[in-house]
């Protein structure tokens, strides 16, 4: 029996990280707004981080646009554990 792990599995891990990133970014922004600190400095910093994030996600998308996500990342052959050694 062969167990294959396709490449798109790491995409799910990446998306899970993106979700965590989004939560913490929003938390940071929420802290700035709630404490009344949304002035020029915090606006510039928030805009800078937001722009860098968009740029990074765009370039990630562009670099991975032609990837075949269906190809096999890892393959396990369970017969390896069942076969008896030959001497």
């Amino acid at each position, binding site marked *: 029996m062969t167990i294959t792990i396709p490449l798109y599995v*790491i995409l799910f891990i990446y998306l899970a990280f993106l979700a965590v990133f989004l939560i913490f970014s929003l938390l*940071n922004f929420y802290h700035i707004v709630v*404490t009344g*600190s949304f002035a020029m*400095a915090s606006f510039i910093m*928030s805009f800078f981080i937001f722009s860098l994030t968009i740029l*990074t996600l765009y370039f*990630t998308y562009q670099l991975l646009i032609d*990837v075949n996500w269906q190809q096999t990342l890892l393959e396990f052959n369970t017969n390896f554990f069942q076969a008896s050694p030959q001497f």
Partner: protein
Amino acid sequence: MQFIGHLIKQKPYEKIEYSLHRHPITFFPKILIFIFMMAVPAGVYFLFINIFPDLFQTEIYYTLAVLLASIYFLSIYLYAYGEFVDFYLDMWIVTNDRVIDIEQIGLFSRTVTEFDLYNIQDLTVNITGFFHTLLNYGDIDVKTASGNTHIIFRNIPNPNEVRQSMIQLAESDRQYHLKQSR
């Protein structure tokens, strides 16, 4: 100022005199760390290209490298944003009635200390260091009569002017409370 008034539950007769943050130069080391961390993937890429020239020809390794680099960069952005929030949300608010110290510790911890102006007994300014002296920023140590409450304004710009102003505000507040008690 409107938001700050809401934050400190500003009283009707209260006027916000100062809303102080640390001097921006104190955030500069974090900016340098950020720039260095941004440059690390480029160095790693050139290292791998020289040691394993055909590594990124394989689609799987190429995909893993791109996703890891993306995760790394996004983590740096989150770190930088978190450090900024930690730096910027440390603030000291001086009104004509109170002194409030808001200290942000990480993302999920904040300490707020306040006391009345007329309780101030001692104000000490400490400007130590080359950049501190050149750019005129330093600490103000504010002690009250009880000694239990102790606030330090850390690395604020123009600390001597703030100290002088606080002395005058404290004296005015003391006079006001003396009149009220008669």
